[in-house]
């Protein structure tokens, strides 16, 4: 069985552990064993990136080196983590001076970055490593009469030259997976726009405005739920639906792609942690029919 090393990042363990559990269960079902990375550090994200290019490179570089030591590719579930790791891999692969400097720091604990490790976002593992055909074969139950909107996450798909996941202006992986599981993928205004998450720290009201706009557009297009591929986006699109000036009758479930695929693959809901979701997933789960 193919193994891949999960870099879980800062947010998942605290805010959305079910995403981690569902990923392990779903990939396992599809023939990919997830092993967890220990002794990791934060990738640096946009915070460290904003103040020091080299500090950012060193932090991501160490994570890459940890996986390299185990001769494994890295699996990232978060757009920020996968983006940071990929951007820094690209930087270190192309800038010899920076690579040397980072390796000096890493050598103190016996680590070395050479660039052998690949960084894989969850969508790449599903699309490229496993493949739509294999997933289709593994589907046990299908969703019927369900319309869902896909949200890809900016850092998952851009910049394309570096992340190489999906078409940055017209991404299709999540949409294909929605359809493979029997539901209908709906297109909506501003599909590739940001969820607003990265702006939360600087201006919460603007961030919320952006996220709510996105949900509104999806509902307007007839979507009954939103499928995500990034922990940050998932949390942001969930929390913008709560709060004073929101209409709870207009709430739609937000669900990570693996929690959506899991039940169709015959994985039990409690393994996927769906009951922990803040938005009510019933409309999705009730659309699941018997054997396809």
């Amino acid at each position, binding site marked *: 069985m193919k193994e891949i090393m999960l870099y879980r990042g*800062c947010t998942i*363990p605290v805010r959305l552990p079910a995403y981690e559990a569902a990923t392990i269960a779903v990939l396992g079902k599809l023939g990919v064993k997830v092993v967890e990375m220990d*002794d990791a550090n934060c990738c640096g994200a946009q915070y*460290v990136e904003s103040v020091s290019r080299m500090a950012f490179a060193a*932090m991501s570089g160490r994570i890459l080196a940890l996986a390299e030591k185990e001769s494994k590719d890295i699996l990232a579930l978060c757009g920020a983590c996968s983006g940071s790791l990929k951007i820094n891999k690209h930087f270190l692969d192309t800038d010899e001076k920076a690579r040397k400097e980072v390796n000096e720091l890493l050598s103190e604990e016996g680590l070395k970055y050479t660039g052998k490790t690949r960084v894989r976002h969850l969508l790449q593992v599903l699309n490229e490593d496993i493949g739509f055909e294999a997933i289709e074969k593994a589907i046990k139950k299908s969703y019927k009469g369900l319309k869902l909107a896909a949200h890809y996450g900016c850092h998952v798909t*851009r*910049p394309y030259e570096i992340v190489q996941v999906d078409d940055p202006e017209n991404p299709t992986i999540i949409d294909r997976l929605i359809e493979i599981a029997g539901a209908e993928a709906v297109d909506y205004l501003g599909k590739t726009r940001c969820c607003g998450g990265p702006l939360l720290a*600087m201006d919460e009201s603007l961030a919320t405005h952006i996220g709510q706009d996105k949900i509104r557009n999806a509902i307007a297009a007839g979507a009954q739920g939103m499928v995500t591929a990034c922990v940050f986006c998932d949390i942001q699109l969930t929390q913008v639906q709560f709060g004073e000036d929101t209409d709870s009758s207009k709430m739609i479930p937000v669900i990570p792609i693996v929690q959506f695929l899991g039940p169709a693959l015959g994985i039990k809901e409690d*393994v996927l942690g769906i009951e922990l979701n803040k938005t009510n997933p019933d409309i999705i789960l009730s659309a699941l029919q018997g054997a396809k």
Partner: protein
Amino acid sequence: MSNETHTPSSDFAKEIASIPGGEVINKCIQCGICTASCVVAYVDDQYRPRRLIQKILIGKRDEVLNSDQPWLCMTCRMCEERCQEGVSPAEIFHAVRVLAAKEGHIPKVFQNTIEKVLCDGWMLADAYTDFNEDEREDLGLNPALAWNDTFTKKVKKKYLAGEESA
């Protein structure tokens, strides 16, 4: 528009161009597709990526470095995807942030988060409670996250020693 009359200078643009990532500012032709693509600009009529870049190009150094605006970029890179000239406003604003931070102009929230990350090795150490540990156990996940803070402290010492007092 500020009331003061400014004398344009290319010095600031050159300075930004000398910071890794910032060199793409040399390619900007002020077409405005960045502003047109920007979702922040869509919800905030004060935020205009093209305007911010033009302010850099005419050398409004103090205003730009003291402004919150470069920190509002979500780095969603929609503008970069659409720019016909190969400019990445996200990279330009990163270069501005690096310079601003060096000179002590860094939003508190960024400052605090960076402090946290570098001290604890990760971002949410304070938020990780027994409740989270139980939840992880229930899901069959390892509750011991085993984050490494030795390396991040080393990074802080090497690259961001001056930042602390900022």
